């Protein structure tokens, strides 16, 4: 019986000491603030399209820091997911198809002769990328448009198209070399395949 009591007493005293220490530390060394949200926000594409189910990128960043999945942003695509996974030390997962799929980058284009100048699109654009005033035709500032397509739906005359960003020598990207071995088994060599690949 004594042994039981000693055991309880010893462990109790140990625990009490620790309890005091941790209780003290919990108050004394309390830390506020959570810069992680900003870091997450930095990684999101800022398309502000709402496809993630949150009104804008920042709210989604907050949601992620509170544990939401990192695969809900289609404009960011896989590369954003990977960056987030690295930042948060989470597993890389494929894009959640429920929120849409990764599409090529687009910009809005307003067919000006059809535009009736209703300003609905201006109100819809989260980054103020549409110029124009009531009753005048509107144009999109291509360099500012994030391609979120939020302006498409409100347009009463459906004069806004989302067109893929045109490729020019200035924004053209070198393609990755055709992935090594699988294709190239003819003795015609890599050249021909590259040519086919480049078309």
């Amino acid at each position, binding site marked *: 019986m004594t042994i039981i009591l000693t055991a309880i007493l010893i*462990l109790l005293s140990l625990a009490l000491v620790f*309890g*005091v220490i941790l*209780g*003290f530390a919990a*108050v004394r060394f309390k830390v506020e603030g959570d810069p992680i949200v900003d870091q997450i926000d930095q990684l999101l594409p800022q398309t502000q399209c709402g496809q993630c189910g949150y009104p804008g990128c920042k709210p989604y960043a907050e949601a992620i820091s509170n544990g939401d999945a990192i695969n809900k942003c289609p404009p960011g695509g896989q590369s954003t997911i990977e960056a987030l996974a690295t930042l948060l030390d989470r597993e890389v997962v494929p894009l959640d198809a429920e929120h849409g799929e990764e599409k090529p980058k687009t910009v809005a284009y307003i067919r000006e002769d059809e535009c009736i100048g209703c300003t609905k699109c201006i109100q819809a654009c989260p980054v103020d990328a549409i110029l124009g005033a009531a009753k005048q035709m509107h144009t999109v500032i291509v360099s500012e448009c994030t391609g979120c397509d939020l302006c498409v739906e409100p347009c009463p005359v459906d004069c806004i198209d989302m067109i893929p960003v045109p490729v020019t020598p200035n924004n053209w990207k070198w393609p990755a070399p055709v992935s090594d071995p699988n294709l190239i088994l003819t003795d015609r060599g890599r050249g021909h395949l590259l040519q086919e690949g480049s078309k």
Partner: protein
Amino acid sequence: MEGLLYSIRKNTLGIGIFAAVTAGLIAITQVLTSERIQQNQEAHQARILYEILPRALDEQLHQQTIRVPAPELGLHEPIEIFQAIVNDQVQAVIIPVTAKEGYSGDIEMLVGIWNDGSVAGVRVVSHRETPGLGDKIEVEKSDWILSFDGLKWLGDDDQRWNVRKEGGEFDQFTGATITPRAVVRQVAKTLEYFDLRKEQILRPSIQLNRVDDDE
């Protein structure tokens, strides 16, 4: 300040309660099992001893030890030798020794010796020899270790105490000479030591209770 005290009180209380309960739980288990555990431990220790010497010879073998200095075996500390005592006479002893020349590390053994100097039995307690090669010194793996039984040490020029490859009488295992050689040499050394310290080793550590037993 208020918050600090509250925090300390809350946390301490929480951790304290759990500490008390868990400690109690463990303590009770301990109390309930301690006896059985002790039995197990003793039985385990004694098991090998009684493999070398039959339990019938002396039930108390595992409790009767005598400390004998062993500079001859290269040890600074005396070793504890088990004695099987029948009628106040030490019938046999079991000497724990370590073979240092194993293939990879020490080989700990028990060497049982009848009081006439012949081997009662040898068992390996622990070793780190290569499984499948050096581990044939375990009695579970091979009968090799039994080949010592009954042999004696005939003095310095006894050529039998070596592996066959080097002119001795003991088989080496295929592909492994070092382990058996280490064991053989250590057993021989132990026998030599026994010869040297026979007097001391064969002096019974306990006498009285045996007489009572016999009656």
